[in-house]
C-alpha cells in the first residue's frame, strides 16, 4: 500500500508534467520537461522554510498534513472499491482545506484564493448530478457494484455520456491553468497557496500528485470499468492530454463567469437526470 501510494504520488506528478508540456506545445512553446512537477516537489523541499509572522501557525501547518492525508485516504477507498460518496466527501473536504490554506496565511492573496475556493464549490454540483445518474443506472454507489454493472452492460461512458462529461468538467475545474482555475489565478499571485513555500509547498505538490492520480483513476473506473494497470495508466495519460488541450485553448474565466458556466451545465445535467429518471 505504501509502495502504491508513492507510485501514485510520482505518477500523478508526472501526469501534471505531461499536462504542462502539452499546454506548452499547443501554444508553440517548448515547455518544461514532463518530469518538471517531480523536480518542483524536490526543489521546494530543499528551500528555506518558516511560518510567516502573519500566519496562524497551527492551521498553516495542519492543512498541509490534512491535504496529503485525505487524498491518501481517497486512494485507499478507491482501491478497496468503496463508496463513491466517501471519495466525493473527501473532494468536498479538499475545498475546506483550500479555504484553510488561504485563510491561515494572513496574506490578502491567500485569503482571496480561499474565498474563491468557496465560490468554486459550484463546480461540485454537476458532480452530485453525475453521482445521481450513476446510482440511477447501477442501483448502487459502491465502486465494486458499478464495475460489475459495466462488466455486464458495457461502459457507462456510452450509456450515460453526459454524466461522464459532468465528471470531466469537475476534473477540469481541479486542473491548473484551466478555465475554472480561479482559486490560483495569476492576479492572486498563486491564490490560496501563495504563502505556502518551501517544504509546505513540497507537501502540497505531493497532495496534488495523489489528487490527480485519484481523480483520473476514478473517472476511468466509473465510466470505463476496471481495466489492467497498463490500460489504466495509458487511459490516464489520454484523459490528461485532452484536459491539457482544453486548458490550452480556453482562457481563464472570471469568477462570475466560471460559476455561471458551471451552474448552466448543472441545469442541463438536472434536466438530463430527470429525463433519464422518467424514461429509464
Amino acid at each position, binding site marked *: *500500500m*505504501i509502495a502504491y501510494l508513492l507510485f501514485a504520488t510520482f505518477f500523478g506528478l508526472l501526469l501534471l508534467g505531461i499536462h504542462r508540456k502539452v499546454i506548452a506545445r499547443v501554444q508553440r512553446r517548448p515547455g518544461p520537461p514532463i518530469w518538471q512537477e517531480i523536480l518542483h516537489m524536490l526543489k521546494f*523541499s530543499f528551500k*528555506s522554510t518558516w511560518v510567516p509572522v502573519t500566519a496562524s501557525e497551527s492551521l498553516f501547518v495542519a492543512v498541509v*498534513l490534512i491535504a496529503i492525508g485525505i487524498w491518501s*485516504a481517497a486512494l485507499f477507498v478507491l482501491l478497496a472499491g468503496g463508496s463513491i460518496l466517501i471519495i466525493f466527501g473527501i473532494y468536498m473536504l479538499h475545498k475546506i482545506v483550500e479555504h484553510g490554506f488561504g485563510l491561515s496565511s494572513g496574506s490578502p492573496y491567500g485569503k482571496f484564493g480561499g474565498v474563491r475556493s468557496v465560490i468554486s464549490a459550484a463546480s461540485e454540483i454537476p458532480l452530485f448530478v453525475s453521482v445521481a445518474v450513476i446510482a440511477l443506472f447501477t442501483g448502487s454507489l459502491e465502486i465494486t457494484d458499478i464495475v460489475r454493472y459495466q462488466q455486464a452492460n458495457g461502459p457507462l461512458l456510452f450509456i450515460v455520456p453526459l454524466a461522464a462529461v459532468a465528471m470531466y468538467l469537475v476534473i477540469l475545474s481541479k486542473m491548473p491553468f484551466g478555465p475554472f482555475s480561479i482559486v490560483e489565478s495569476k492576479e492572486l499571485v498563486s491564490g490560496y497557496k501563495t504563502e505556502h513555500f*518551501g*517544504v509546505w509547498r513540497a507537501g502540497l505538490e505531493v497532495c496534488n500528485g495523489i489528487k490527480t492520480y485519484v481523480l483520473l483513476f476514478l473517472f476511468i473506473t466509473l465510466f470505463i470499468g476496471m481495466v489492467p494497470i497498463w490500460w489504466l495508466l495509458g487511459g490516464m495519460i489520454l484523459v490528461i492530454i485532452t484536459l491539457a488541450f482544453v486548458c490550452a485553448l480556453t482562457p481563464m474565466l472570471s469568477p462570475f463567469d466560471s460559476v455561471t458556466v458551471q451552474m448552466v451545465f448543472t441545469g442541463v445535467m438536472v434536466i438530463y437526470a430527470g429525463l433519464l429518471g422518467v424514461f429509464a
Partner: protein
Amino acid sequence: MRKKMLLMITLVAGMTILIALSLNAAGEIPLWLYQAVIVIAFPVFVLFLGLWWMAPDREGDIPFIGY
C-alpha cells in the same frame, strides 16, 4: 537540538508505517488499520523529512546590524 527533534519525528513516523506494514503482512492487523496508519503517518513523514534536511546544524550567525 531542533534538527534532532525533527529527525526523531521523521523516524517515528517512518517506523510506524514499517511496523504497520510488517504487522499487516503477518496478518496481525487488518488492511484498513494499516491504511489508517499510513493516512496519519505518511503526511507527517513527508513534511518532517523535508523540515529535517533543511534545518540548520548550528545556530544562525549574528545578524549584520550596520556600521
